[in-house]
């Protein structure tokens, strides 16, 4: 029997790693991820988890140690946030290019400066192109579920890619709420033992990560890209199977009251749930408005996304990150995904929720009303934002 317990999201992630029976965790503590490695270290010390916990001296080393562990076929987990993910950055690419199915939880955090330990999606967007499968969580249950699911998908012999599970720093990582934990037998049914076909073994020597001169680098990268795009099939199968066993269903693009919607709001992560409250109020008043959320960020779910937004007139994209000199990164991708579509909605970008700034119900009301104006009349502003004191910095907010 599954049980309903009160669990902080960080502990839910650690619990998922424990139930997945990980073999190796190498992590370096950083706010707001700290509770995840703390809890895992405790589990290993108390004998609740039979794993090697490697207390490394930096995030760069954390991911490097994970590479080594995954290379011998160990089920490998780590977690980081913000600056930690940035320090790890070059090794993050190596994990995907060497096809090591490491699972990493990222408690999304803003990037310095000014120094901020609080949440936004700048760290996630900075690793957008690293070749990891990436998903976003909206609540603690999803943090547990998607961590478990990540092992299954990443380790599938048809996939062999690392998976990043994004959960908002503090807004999820430090929140205690109810989580349904499954039976170990159900987890075992969902997640088979990791059997890595190419594990390093002194009895059968082979080379991992060889030099890639111009004669082979292109082929290696394109082969990687072909395999990465194909991983979507297993991603969907994994969610399907997860739904069958645990009764909770996940989709590449999550929809909320989208039937017949002329206006669609797109959010990612935990603020999606706050947005649902506003969508409910407006729907109940008869407005044709709905909400979508990109669960799957990489590989980008082109077909599902285009299908869902096809009938809308306006698509509002709320970004919690700025690509300097460009705008919101999610907005750029979404608009690009729609460029050749006929018909297609007008796409409006609003930036907010930076560095832990709350996005309240009132903020969502503003986002929707303002975006409709922009869709009709355009915008003369350099940047459309929500919850930013424009006057304070001499711009029209």
């Amino acid at each position: 029997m599954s049980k309903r317990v009160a669990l902080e999201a960080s502990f839910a992630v650690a619990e998922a790693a424990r139930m997945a029976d990980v073999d190796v965790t190498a992590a370096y503590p950083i706010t707001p991820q700290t509770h995840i490695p703390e809890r895992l270290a405790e589990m290993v010390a108390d004998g609740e988890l039979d794993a090697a916990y490697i207390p490394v001296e930096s995030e760069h080393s954390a991911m490097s140690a994970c590479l080594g562990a995954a290379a011998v076929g160990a089920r490998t987990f780590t977690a980081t946030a913000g600056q930690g993910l940035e320090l790890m950055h070059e090794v993050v690419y190596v994990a995907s290019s060497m096809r090591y199915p490491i699972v990493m939880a990222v408690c999304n955090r803003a990037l310095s400066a000014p120094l901020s330990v609080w949440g936004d999606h700048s760290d996630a967007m900075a690793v957008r192109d690293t070749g990891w499968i990436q998903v976003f969580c909206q609540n603690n249950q999803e943090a547990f579920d998607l961590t478990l699911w990540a092992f299954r998908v990443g380790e599938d012999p048809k996939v062999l890619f690392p998976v990043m599970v994004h959960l908002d720093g503090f807004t999820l990582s430090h929140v205690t709420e109810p989580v349904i934990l499954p039976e170990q037998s159900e987890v075992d049914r969902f997640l088979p033992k990791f059997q890595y076909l190419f594990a390093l073994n002194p009895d059968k020597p082979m080379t991992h990560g060889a030099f890639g001169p111009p004669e082979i680098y292109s082929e290696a990268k394109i082969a990687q890209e072909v395999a990465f795009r194909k991983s979507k099939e297993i991603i969907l199968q994994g969610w399907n199977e997860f739904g069958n066993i645990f009764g909770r269903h996940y989709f590449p693009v999550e929809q909320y009251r989208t039937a017949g919607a002329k206006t669609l709001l797109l959010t990612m992560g935990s603020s999606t749930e706050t947005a649902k409250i506003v969508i409910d109020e407006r729907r109940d008043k008869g407005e044709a408005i709905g909400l979508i959320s990109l669960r799957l960020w990489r590989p980008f779910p082109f077909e599902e996304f285009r299908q869902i937004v096809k009938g809308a007139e306006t698509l509002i994209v709320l970004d919690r990150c700025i690509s300097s000199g460009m705008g919101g990164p999610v907005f750029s991708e979404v608009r690009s995904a729609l460029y050749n579509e006929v018909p297609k909605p007008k796409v409006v970008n609003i930036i907010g929720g930076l560095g832990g700034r709350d996005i309240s119900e009132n903020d969502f009301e503003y986002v929707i009303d303002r975006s409709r104006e922009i869709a009709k009349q355009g915008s003369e502003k350099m940047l459309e934002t929500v919850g930013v004191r424009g006057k304070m910095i001499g711009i029209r907010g």
Partner: protein
Amino acid sequence: MLEVRWHGRGGLGAVTSAELVARAAIGEGKYAQSFPSFGPERRGAPVLAFLRINNEFIRLRTNIYAPDIVVVLDPGLLHAVDVTLGLKEEGKIVINSRKTPAELKSEFDFKWPVAAVNATKIAKEAIGLAITNTAMIGAFLRVSEVVKMDFLVEQLKERFGKRAEANIEAMKRAYHETTLKE
């Protein structure tokens, strides 16, 4: 939905208070969220913790700006921060103080009902430390009764192990000794 803001100082256990009440509510089958004010908190500095309790899944993921109840773990905070910021018209204030609710109401000109208990004294006598969080859970329960005492007892047993009995005593004593002035 009930929203509660806990005012404490780093080390007094405000975050633990909010969490224990949330755990008890979830244990009862309700929905709850608890979370700290987010940041690099320091020992002794004013801190906040937040608690939501509801009969349905809670989707709101922001700080609490208009609490139904504020709980103040240290009387000195009344001079340091505005504990009533955003407090709803029909809200209530629960304070750890040697003073009576009537004295506190007139001293700080509170327009809301005030409940008070000498939680520092109770904590020192029951636990041997001036850590007021469990006593103030008792005071909170007296005012809201949103969660049953038995479920809190269970949570305290789980959290405090050998020190559980002393903390349960502090909670129960504070519950009985809390007085209210409308």
